[in-house]
């Protein structure tokens, strides 16, 4: 007993404290699992009017998976509290990243999700690529030419060779540009 405590004390410098990622993760997941089991399942999975056997219930598998996640998250949390995991060096690499870089990435994602139909495959592809190039601080002009050529060529390839109808862009259509 004493020995293990000593070991623990010696090792604790390279370990996280009580507030370590595993306990937080386990805690978060157990709360989510509880919410899923006791709110989401009753509210969003109907029970059919007639059912031959309880094993056939539409709620059976989601419940099974939900309890599994709950039990394992608790295990993970307790495990994390008793035996905190070691710190990894890669964390250092993730500090001090310019905020602009991340904002531009999110902006590119938003362009794709919200304006894909409006701007069309080419338009959104060009805009998002330019945003991402800016995020990496690229200064060469020919690189930005790539951001225009690639989406255009790939879109035309999809549409005419592979017969996949990517959207041309409702914005341009309403402006009668195409």
């Amino acid at each position, binding site marked *: 007993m004493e020995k293990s405590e000593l070991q623990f004390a010696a090792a604790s410098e390279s370990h996280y404290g009580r507030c370590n990622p595993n306990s937080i993760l386990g805690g978060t997941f157990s709360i989510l699992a509880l919410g899923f089991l006791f709110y989401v399942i009753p509210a969003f999975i109907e029970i*059919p009017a007639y059912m031959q056997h309880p094993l056939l219930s539409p709620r059976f598998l989601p419940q099974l998976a939900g309890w599994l996640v709950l039990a394992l998250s608790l295990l993970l949390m307790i495990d994390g509290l008793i035996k905190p995991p070691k710190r990894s060096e890669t964390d250092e690499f993730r500090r001090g990243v310019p905020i602009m870089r991340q904002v531009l990435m999110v902006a590119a994602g938003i362009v794709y999700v919200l304006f894909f139909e409006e701007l069309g495959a080419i338009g959104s592809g060009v805009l998002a690529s330019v945003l991402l190039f800016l995020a990496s601080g690229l200064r060469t002009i020919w690189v930005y030419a790539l951001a225009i050529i690639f989406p255009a060529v790939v879109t035309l390839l999809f549409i005419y060779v592979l017969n996949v109808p990517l959207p041309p862009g409702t914005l341009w259509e309403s402006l009668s540009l195409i």
Partner: protein
Amino acid sequence: MLKFVKSRVRNKFLYALTAVSLSCGGLVQADEWPEDNIRLVVPYSAGGTTDLLSRKVADLLQKELTTVVVENRPGAGSTVATGQLARGGRGSDHMLLMASPGHTIGASLYPNLRYDPVADFAFVRNVINIPNVMVVPGDSPYNTVAEFVEAARKQEMSFSSPGIGSSVHMSGELFKNLTQTQLVHVPFRGSGEALPALLSGDVDVAFENMPTVYPHIQSGKLKALAVTTPSASEFLPDVPTMQDAGKGYGLETYETSAWFGLIAHKSFPEEGMVKLQAALDKVMAGEEFTKFLPQFGAEAGTVVGDDFRQFVQGEVQKWSDVAEKANLKR
């Protein structure tokens, strides 16, 4: 730079306005209907039966009219693509959709559809019908529909289908309703998974599409008890129709088939409709089409225009009742 772009856009916008005002005058004399490629939407994934049939029809149709581009838009049965067609909008005067039983069954199965499966569409014509066949495993003790129904009234039996809401599934539910038997539905994902269970006798019966089971009927691994169409099929001339074989068991009105037909947005131009129907008549009389049908155990569609609309109306009603009794109605 930005200013330049802005002015370019404004210029284009002005051009566009002029173009619109010019074309308004042109609207009256739009007598050349295929002004553009026809888009044929297939509401299922590429490679399925509906897709195959549509591509063949498109291929033949474009020899008569103009280029026909096939687009696959799968999702939520066939209801996603159908809903898009119902909304109309740009290009809907050149857009067709290959409707199938999913069109009528989906109307009962999927909640809050934002369209009416009959009123929101124009009905071109029914192109192809594929009969369903009531089949039992080769070593099954039942040889006629009557024997089967008698047995099914005494004990619980099961029937397989390639998925809930498919025409194969609903044919079974209809059979169950009319004969007052307790058949248990065992859903699979696709005929490829459903067939082995039937061949090995894990399920007692199925109401499968003709092309899926035809080779197995020939090889004796399955027994055909009845075809579901009102007249006997030329592929299985010895097999009675369900209406004949099920006399006295409530099956006198039983009729189902996998039908495929072209529908369009309700505002589809009258002139296009006439031209399309004429072109389809030509296609369906052609040798290539009649040679193609037997490969799918299929028959040429019969109903056109308003008759087709009435047929679909009837189907919607029929499946809505069946779905209600099977607790599937949303």
